[in-house]
């Protein structure tokens, strides 16, 4: 075995699914103690590539070498033995078991051959904890821990097999803004402290530039670039990730606030829900996109759900379109011209119904005869119109909505909501979650189009500050249920906004 061979060498790996080449002759090397970022849009083939590394998928062409030795994985067990382990994006833990039991799951210590030895497992978990230098509690049920702690437990489990290579699939996706920085430091420390290399899959470019040594960019199943981090810029990465024609730039026309203030659509001061009064002083003007930014759990969704009548509350009083409203469920609010698209895309659709049914359910009254029969022809025509207006890609109006991509589903949800008669205020809650850059930019354009060309108002809730700064006229910052700051477009500054969202005074810390 020569010392010059890289730790892991991926050679011409190829994976085909019926008719589609998901990974197309990808090659790159990963060195000792290296953090190698793997980026690309959704569907670029990152996950498929990693599943071949972990043995979950068979390899169609090409091979993997570890320390110059050719590997042949028949299943995940082989890959684990060879020193590759992966932490998936979604949490894979047993909620009622504690950290020690989760770490040893599948590899339990036994006493007398039959009884599970809790003490030995605890000792093993402690050893792992020591090695990683973390202080996660070991005897608390996982379900009582926060997302960050759960993530650490999964990493502890993955490293307990002493792998040489650890694959992390979008590890920060489930973390709040405040958790990310310490987590990145922790990953960096992993490579030096316990002598492993990390393949770091992510969407977030800033993270890569903070911790990675090298980056490989994939697009459409092909590798488009591998580079050392200090040698390239974020722009170069983005260009390698997408075909430039797919991304559209967003233009926000300047706002005349004095003029706009005359047409306040929504004006809120205080809401009482979950037994607490929250000071949420904000307003939305006509033709304006207002962003809500804050940490996970800062009360952005809750606020809009209370206003839209979806969430029960103790007391609410606000002005909508000149009318003071103190009660009303979502049905009533939709009739008044206010609608919300839910945070979880799947809560906004009927997954097992087709496109026509999904689009028309909101408009049953409009599309039914006076005897309550649905007018088929009108429904189909209406659906077609909505789909076309929003540039949705679909095969047939009879196909299930769940067959469409997330971006297209989101377009239908927004497109359908906009058709509500005399709509004045649309709330979109995390509309771009899980979408790739191309699809995201289309959603941004759609939101701007609503505000600029149709004169509607939009409340845009998001955890991605960057997109809010790109699209919004103003941003309200939430902290622990309250609005702590209003920022106009001219004053946008991500350090300041993040500072407020973290509960500071906005000096960026």
């Amino acid at each position, binding site marked *: 075995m020569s010392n010059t061979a890289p730790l892991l060498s991926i050679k011409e790996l190829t994976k085909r699914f019926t008719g589609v080449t998901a990974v197309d002759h990808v090659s790159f090397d990963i060195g000792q103690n290296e953090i190698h970022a793997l980026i690309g849009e959704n569907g670029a083939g990152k996950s498929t590539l990693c599943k071949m590394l972990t043995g979950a998928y068979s390899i169609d062409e090409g091979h993997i070498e570890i320390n110059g030795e050719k590997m042949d994985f028949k299943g*995940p*067990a082989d890959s*684990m033995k060879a020193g590759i382990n992966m932490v*998936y994006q*979604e949490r*894979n*833990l*047993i*909620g*009622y*078991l504690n950290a020690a*039991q989760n770490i040893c*799951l*599948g*590899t*339990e210590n*036994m006493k007398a051959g*039959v*009884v*599970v030895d809790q003490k030995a497992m605890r000792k093993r978990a402690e050893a792992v904890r020591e090695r990683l230098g973390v*202080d996660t*509690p070991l005897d*608390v049920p996982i379900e*009582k*821990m*926060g*997302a*960050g*702690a759960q993530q*650490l437990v999964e990493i502890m*489990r993955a490293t307990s097999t002493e792998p040489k290579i650890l694959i992390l699939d979008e590890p920060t996706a*489930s973390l*709040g803004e*405040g*958790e990310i920085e*310490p*987590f990145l430091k*922790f990953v960096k420390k992993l490579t030096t402290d316990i002598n492993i290399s990390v393949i770091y899959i992510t969407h977030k470019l800033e993270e890569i530039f903070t911790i990675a040594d090298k980056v490989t960019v994939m697009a459409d199943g092909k590798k488009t670039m591998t580079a050392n981090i200090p040698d390239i810029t974020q722009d170069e990465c983005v260009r390698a990730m997408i075909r430039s024609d797919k991304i559209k730039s967003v233009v926000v026309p300047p706002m005349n606030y004095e003029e706009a203030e005359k047409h306040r659509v929504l004006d809120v001061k205080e809401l009482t829900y979950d037994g607490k009064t929250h000071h949420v002083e904000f307003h939305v003007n006509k033709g304006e996109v207002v962003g809500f930014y804050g*940490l*996970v*759990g800062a009360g*952005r*969704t*809750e606020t809009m759900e209370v206003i839209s009548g979806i969430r029960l509350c103790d007391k609410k009083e606000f002005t909508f379109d000149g009318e003071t409203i103190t009660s009303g469920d979502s049905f009533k609010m939709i009739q008044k011209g206010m609608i919300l698209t839910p*945070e979880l895309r799947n809560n906004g659709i009927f997954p097992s119904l087709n496109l026509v049914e999904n689009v028309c359910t909101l408009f049953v009254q409009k599309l039914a005869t006076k005897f309550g029969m649905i007018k088929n022809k009108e429904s189909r025509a209406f659906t077609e119109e909505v789909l076309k207006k929003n540039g949705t890609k679909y095969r047939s109006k009879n196909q299930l909505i769940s067959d469409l991509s997330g971006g297209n589903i989101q377009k239908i949800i927004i497109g359908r909501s906009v058709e509500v008669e005399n709509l004045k205020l649309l709330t979109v809650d995390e509309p771009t979650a899980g979408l790739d850059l191309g699809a995201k930019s289309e959603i941004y354009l759609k939101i701007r189009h609503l505000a600029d060309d149709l004169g509607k108002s939009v409340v845009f809730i998001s955890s991605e500050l960057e997109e809010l700064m790109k699209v919004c006229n103003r941003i309200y910052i939430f902290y622990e249920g309250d609005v702590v700051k209003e920022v106009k477009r001219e004053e946008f500054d991500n350090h300041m906004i993040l500072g407020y969202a973290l509960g500071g005074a906005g000096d960026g810390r």
Partner: protein
Amino acid sequence: MAGKEGKRVKLAVKRKSTVGENITKYFLLIADVILIVFFGIMRSGFLQPSNLLNILSTAALVGVMGMGASIVMMVGEMNFGVGAEATLTAALLGFILGKGYVNVYLVAVLIALLVIGLMGVLDSVFGVIIGVPAFIATLAISKINDGIVNWLTEGKTMFYNNWPDAFKFLGQGRIGPVPVMAIAFLIIALLLWFIMDKTKLGTYIQAIGNNTNCCKQVGINVRRIKIIAFIICSLVCGFSGILACSRTSNVQGTLGSGIMMDAMASAMLGATFLRPGRYNIQGTVVAAILTAIISNGITFCAYPDYIQDIVNGIILIIAVGYIAMKRKEGLPSVKMG
């Protein structure tokens, strides 16, 4: 965006369990004690050891079948054939002993259990391997079992004079003052508790019900564990059938279906005990005893029979209702199709 997610990597441990949680956890046991005291006050004879032992042996039928059903529920599936499996086992046992194919009781029991174990395999072939929702697969297979039972019993209550005395031992025998039924109940409960809470197999059975993906990822053979769960369930339920026919010295077509609903109910009620939200053996046992206390107490106090059903129903709905209110996630759901 529920506020559940923490904001710090180092997350403080949440508070210790509260009084309310403890009441939830031990509701069934508290109900057991309260009812025993209540009936004891109403009729002093109720508290005699012999009567309490009787309660235990009454609980055995429902309890054993309930434990079997709860094992399949633990892996997140549902076996709707537990009643038919119990009847079939009883009918097989009665048939091969009665027709004189086998003369040794123990051998006949083993043969009957072997057959019913194979029924468990059949359940899992359709429910786990082929992928028919287990609820539907087991319901369909239970119809086949019903048919076989009818064929074996010729549609009548089965009774043979040449059944050996051992046939009655499990259901009617006593060791000293203690009914064998009660002993069998406790032994099976202890055995299953040990398997479920102390061994690897039990850990996996419970883990699979909680998060199948996680188990696959760490290399647990989910299918194999599920198949084993179905087989254990069939064996345990088959044994409850043997207990039942031994108790009445005959085999009726309704033997299993008569206890099935109570057994299912005690498994579900059991999921409110000790580890709310998760099916567990201890809970099933306590719930089965609760049912037995109610039926025994009501007979003892000479209240009319219908009171028993009403009281049973009220306790069931209060217990599950309370849990549903207390727990955000509600009751553990089982795949119904």
